[in-house]
Structures are given as structure tokens and as C-alpha cells.
């Protein structure tokens, strides 16, 4: 059986006893939108929260059962505030994400970075947000240039290898202009419009973390980090077997493997569109939403894994796999039924089935005096992942 969901036993009933909110016992989203977008919160009690549009209240939160037990809370902002005292960072995040016309992982990431840039997740996060924004701007420029070069080479092959280290030269720019003029009739667009479309497409690939030319696009890097985490779990289980957490570690390993396999398929599909840039431009003109969807799917699929990898890589817990396992267990994203449709034959129905449950001992650290340290820890994670 392929693990899709990690459950945990309630170990701290004294904590949950005073939460008078309805708990959704059986929760399995049918679509990625219904699963919600992972929200990079700093409030300890909200770790692992997702947000999605809601008809009546505008937005709602899906929060793993804080007791560590089965199920999730589905709450509006008022409910969230009954559950805990959200930080200023998270309050602003909720307000601004709620105003997004389309709630997507990319949109949430952008807003979270803006808030970090305002200094509300601490000075480290602010510096990291500034640096990340500059790096992204450069990345989009580079992606635009390299997409153009890919087009040039496809229109007039010369054996040129399109790669990150390429330099802009007058000759290359001339070839680019000629190539765009040449394909304009085939895509039924003016050369100026084609140049603008290439910019947008390059931006979609770059912001989606998928531009294939760079050394380490975000999503490719994320998959590599998930692989590292999986290997570490396997290694640690072999070196220091832990009867109590062994099943949970195995379940995590299986979940990671499933998501990696799905991600590889979706990333290949998105990259496949670049094998024919002229065709891509034509399709973009005809049905831009389809192209956007194809490029965004890996981001939707892996949404939530960034936080898990950050927790696993946190220097404070890197030597304690067992503690990491317990903390990330609740955060493992579900795989909605829509994934079957996205992946075609790449996914069998049992991958959607929930897997085992495990104990959760880390929960008390989220409360009492220790919660202040946890907010600081979560802010450090924001600085690492902004």
C-alpha cells in the first residue's frame, strides 16, 4: 500500500480538551484547490495549515488536529483565533492571501515573501526576502533569454547548446529577431507580441521553479531535498531502529517516494512543452489557461513539502530524526483524487489511500513558555525558505 496520509494518535487530551470546535474526522480532498494552499505560518499551533477559498466566509483554514489525532479542523478566521493567537505575520498573511483573485502556491509564496520583506518575520527573513527577490528578478531575465535561445535553435538549428552560462551577443540577438519574424505567421501574432509572450512564459517557468536551464530551479531542488530526506530516514532507521516510530518513518518514506514519482511525471510534462517552443507559443495564444495549468501543476503537487524539508534541514533538529518524524508527520500533504487525472496512468488508486497512524510526542512544545522559542524557530524557517 502506498502511503498518502500520516495519522497520529492523540497523546495530549488535556491540551485539546478546551478547544470547542468541530473536527472533520474523515477528510480527503477531491481536488488540489480543495486541498488548499500551504501557508507558511509562524504561529506554532498553525504549523501545517492550508488555506482555500470559501463561498460564505471568503477563505477557510484546514488545520491538522492539534492533539495529533485523526482529522482536521476546517475553520474560518474567527475559528482560527479561537484555536490560538495568530502572530501579526500570520494575520497579515491571511488578510492578503484572502484578497488574491486566484489562490495559488505561487501567489501565496509571493505574498509571504512581501510580508517577510517588511520585517514581520524578523530581520533574517527580511534580508532573505530581499535577496530572494533580487535573485528571482535575475532568474526571470535569464529564463527569458534562454527561452528565446531555445526558440532560435529550434527554428534554425546550429548545434548551439542552450545553457545558463551563455552570453548575450549582438549576433545572438540578431538571430533571435530573425527567428521571431520567421515564426510570426505560424503563430498568427506580431513579432512584438511574440516577444512579450516569451517573457510571460519565461516568467511562468521561472516563478514556477521549473526553468530547465538553470543549475537548480526551485522545484527540481525541492525534489532533490525530498530525496535527501527520504535517504536520511532510511539510513537512520537502519542505524538506530526505533520500534515506536519505525512504522511512521516507513510511511513517510513511502509518501515521499510517491510524491517524487508524481513530481517527476508532471515536471517532465511541463518541460515537454519546451521541446516545441513554436507550438507552445501557438497554444499559448489559443488557450493560455491550459499552458498555465500545465506549468503550475508540479507546484500544486509539491505544495507543502518545502515546509517539511525545512523542518528536516533545521540545524536544531538535524541530529534527531525521531523528533523530525514526529513533527512532520502531520504535515505530509494528501494526494487529492484529481492527481489521478493529472498523472494519467502514472498513479494507482491505492496511492490515495490513507496509511498508518503514529504517535505524536512533540505536541506540548507548542504551548507554554516554549511556544515563544517555536515562533522564533518558525521565523528562522521562513528565512531559510522565503
Amino acid at each position, binding site marked *: 500500500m502506498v502511503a498518502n496520509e500520516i495519522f497520529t494518535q492523540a497523546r495530549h487530551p488535556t491540551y485539546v480538551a478546551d478547544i470547542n470546535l468541530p473536527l472533520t474526522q474523515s477528510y480527503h480532498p477531491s481536488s488540489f484547490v480543495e486541498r488548499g494552499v500551504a501557508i507558511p505560518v509562524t504561529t506554532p499551533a498553525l504549523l501545517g495549515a492550508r488555506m482555500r477559498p470559501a463561498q460564505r466566509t471568503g477563505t477557510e483554514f484546514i488545520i491538522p488536529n492539534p492533539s495529533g489525532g485523526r482529522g482536521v479542523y476546517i475553520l474560518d478566521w474567527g475559528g482560527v483565533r479561537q484555536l490560538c493567537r495568530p502572530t501579526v505575520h500570520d494575520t497579515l498573511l491571511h488578510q492578503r492571501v484572502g484578497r488574491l483573485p486566484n489562490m495559488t502556491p505561487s501567489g501565496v509564496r509571493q505574498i509571504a515573501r512581501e510580508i517577510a520583506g*517588511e*520585517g514581520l518575520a524578523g*530581520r533574517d527573513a*527580511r534580508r532573505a526576502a530581499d535577496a530572494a527577490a533580487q535573485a528571482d528578478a535575475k532568474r526571470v531575465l535569464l529564463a527569458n533569454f534562454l527561452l528565446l535561445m531555445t526558440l532560435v535553435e529550434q527554428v534554425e538549428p546550429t548545434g548551439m547548446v542552450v545553457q545558463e552560462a551563455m552570453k548575450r551577443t549582438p549576433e545572438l540577438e540578431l538571430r533571435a529577431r530573425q527567428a521571431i519574424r520567421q515564426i510570426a505567421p505560424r503563430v498568427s501574432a506580431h513579432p512584438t507580441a511574440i516577444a512579450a509572450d516569451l517573457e510571460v512564459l519565461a516568467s511562468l517557468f521561472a516563478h514556477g521553479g521549473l526553468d530547465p536551464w538553470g543549475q537548480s530551479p526551485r522545484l527540481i531542488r525541492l525534489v532533490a531535498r525530498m530525496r535527501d530526506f527520504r535517504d536520511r530516514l532510511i539510513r537512520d532507521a537502519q542505524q538506530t531502529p526505533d520500534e515506536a516510530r519505525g512504522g511512521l518513518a516507513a510511511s513517510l518514506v513511502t509518501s515521499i517516494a510517491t510524491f517524487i514519482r508524481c513530481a517527476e511525471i508532471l515536471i517532465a510534462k511541463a518541460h515537454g512543452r519546451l521541446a516545441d517552443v513554436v507550438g507552445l507559443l501557438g497554444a499559448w495564444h489559443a488557450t493560455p489557461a491550459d499552458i498555465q495549468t500545465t506549468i503550475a501543476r508540479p507546484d500544486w503537487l509539491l505544495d507543502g513539502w518545502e515546509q517539511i524539508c525545512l523542518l528536516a534541514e533545521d540545524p536544531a533538529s538535524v541530529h534527531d530524526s525521531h523528533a523530525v518524524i514526529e513533527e512532520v508527520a502531520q504535515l505530509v500533504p494528501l494526494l487529492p483524487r484529481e492527481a489521478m487525472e493529472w498523472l494519467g496512468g502514472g498513479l494507482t488508486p491505492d496511492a490515495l489511500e490513507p496509511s498508518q497512524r503514529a504517535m505524536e*510526542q512533540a505536541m506540548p512544545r507548542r504551548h507554554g513558555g*516554549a511556544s515563544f522559542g517555536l515562533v522564533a524557530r518558525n521565523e528562522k524557517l521562513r528565512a531559510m525558505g522565503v
Partner: protein
Amino acid sequence: MTRQPTRSSDPAIRAISRTLMEAGDERVLQIVRMIDGMADRGLADEMIAPLRPRLARLRPPRPLTLDRLLFTIFDPIIVPVTRWRPGTATLPRTVLRSLAATTRAGLGSAARAIEETVKGHTVNDRDVALEAGGLLWPGAGEIIFAAPAPLEWETTGLNMSFYPPLARVVGALLTEAVTLETMLSGGRDPDPRAISALLERIGLRAPEALPVAMVLLVTRAPSLIASIAQMAAAKLVGSEVTLRPALDQAIETLTAQLEQADAVEERIHSVSLADVGSAVRRVSMLLQQLGDDSAPAPRRERIKAIRRQLDASCRSRFADGLTTDFIAPLRSNLGVAGDDPVERLEDAARGLRALETEARGVGGGETYDKLLRQAAEIVRQTPGADAMGRADKVRLVEILVGPEAALAMLEGVF
């Protein structure tokens, strides 16, 4: 907190010790560095003895030496020889040097290999300590357990008859030190089954070591009292011995330790602001376990008295920390180079909140609320500057008094 400079009978040492007590933190750290670098510390240890609580708070990166590593697990029960009583689950400080000499002699060349492992590291390097401890503790335990009384035992100031039981206790526990340390370093309470197995092994080898083992376990993980109490009636395998007498002795030792003059205050005042919340939580949990409903009435009364001391210590520590670590730097140090001053203020504010949150469970919260509101007001009124922007102030207010006040400040209500 007032302390005697030293109990030494040597007037010169008393005079130096008094001077040290009055010295600033920087000067104290400098002197400790100097003493740590001495080949033969001799009387220097006596001079700095009264500074131990302060050193615990300052946490100087003291070199990790074989001797220091050898007794690291015993830290919570090491007491000045003047406070040591036979039959209590404590270890007089004066025996350490003698037992370390016995260990070195027994280890021979293996001691040098361990010294190489720890060379250049400090006591704060936990991974190195655990690795080197794995090389040192089991062998040292066997050596001390079996060794005859050393010739220099008289330097400990104790009668020779105290050596055999002390050596058996230290030896038996060092043999299990790797297990004990590994169990307690994971940040969560150990599995009761593992605790039971550990106590079984110790009890079968040296029953007199059981109370000490329990004190060491419970000091670091107070909730273990309940687990140990549950297994106290069962007899050890192949023996008529149960854990009950040892547990009673451990509980008495723990209670008496906390009743010592300044003991609670020392635990709360000798840790850094970053760690004081956890320290309060540990003491508070320990008191809860020691004075629960099953405890005899006289002990419950003793625990109530200790709780009052804890409450007073928390309040004074909070007031000290607020003034020294938050308000003073806020008013004067924002322009100082080095670590980010705002991040230091945030750390201090978090430490204060962690202390206050845990301390509320011990006494009331009104004093804390008032002081925190005053501190937030000072932050609000601090002029904006390059060193501290609006977002920094909002964050400090958030840590001190909560997100609602911080949001109001952000939205310009204040």
C-alpha cells in the same frame, strides 16, 4: 541573591574570593579562562567556588577535559563537601579529583586517546561530549567500581569509610552513563520500559546507586517520578529488592535539595534568560510530582513552602531580566556593533515571556502583566532610528504583550 565568598579558612583565599564576587561579568570570565588554562588548579577552584551560580548563567565555553567529562552526568547532585551528608543521593565535590586520578591511572594510555578527542572542544559541544563519553564512561565506571581507596583520599576531607559506597555508586552509574545520557538528551521523556530496564541493571549491581540514579533522571525529566512510582512495588529480577525505598530516598533528597537556603533562587537566577522558562517549568513540574495528592501531608506542606520561594524567585528574576537584558540595552545599546541589537532584544523579550508564562502556573500574573505593559510602552516611545525600525518595534511589542497590541500599533492606533 547574597552568597558567602567562600568557606575557606585561608584569609588570603577569602579576600580574593570576595574581590571576585564583586567583579564584573567580563572580569569573571577572564579569570575563569585563566584558571582553566592552569596545569594545576590547586586552590584556584576554591576561589571560584562561590561564582558557580554566576558561571552557570554566563555559560563561559569551558574547555572539555577528561575530568570534567567524567563527572558531567553527576552535575545536578554535586554539592560542597560541607553540605554533603552520608546516605543522601548527592556527591561531595572534593571526591571528584581523587576519583579522576584513580580513573586516569586505570585507563593508562586510553586516557590520552580520550583527551585527544576532547582537545580544543568545550563543554557546550554536546555531540563531542557524548562521543568521548562513550569512550570514557563505561571503562571508568568499571575502574572506579573495583578500585581500592586511593592514597590521596584524605584530601577529600572525608573519612575513609565513605569511599566504598561512594565508589560503588559512581562506578555503577558511570557504567550506565551512555544509556542515561542518550535517554535524557532527546528532548522528550524516555520510554518507561527503558527506564525500568536501566534501574533494574543498576539495582542488581549496586542497590545503593538507585536513589542517585533516580535523582539524576528526575532532575532532568521530572515527570519520570510518576513512571518510577508505578514500578516501585515490583521486585527486581531474582531479588527481594524493590525500588520503593530508593524512590523514597530520592524524593527526600530532591525535596531537601530544594529546601536548602537559596537552592530555588540559585536554580532560577543561575540560568540565562533564554533558559529560565525551561528551568521554571522543570522545578515547577518537580514540585508538582513531589507534592501530589499521594504525598504525605508533611511533605505537601514542605512543597508548598518551596513553591512560595519559587514564586518569589521568578518575580525577582523577571524584574532583573527585564531591567538588565531588555530595558537597559533598549535605551543604550542599539548602536553597538556586533550581534544584531534588535535580535538580542527579541531574544530577551522571548526569554521574559517564557519565564512569565511558566511562572504564572506558580503564582499570580498581575505583576508580570504590569511590567510587560510598561516595557511595551517604552518600546513604543523609543524614537525610530536606523537601528530599530517600525517593524522591529511592532515585533517587540508583539512578543511582550501579544499580537493584538502589535497589530493596533501597525495600524496606527497607537
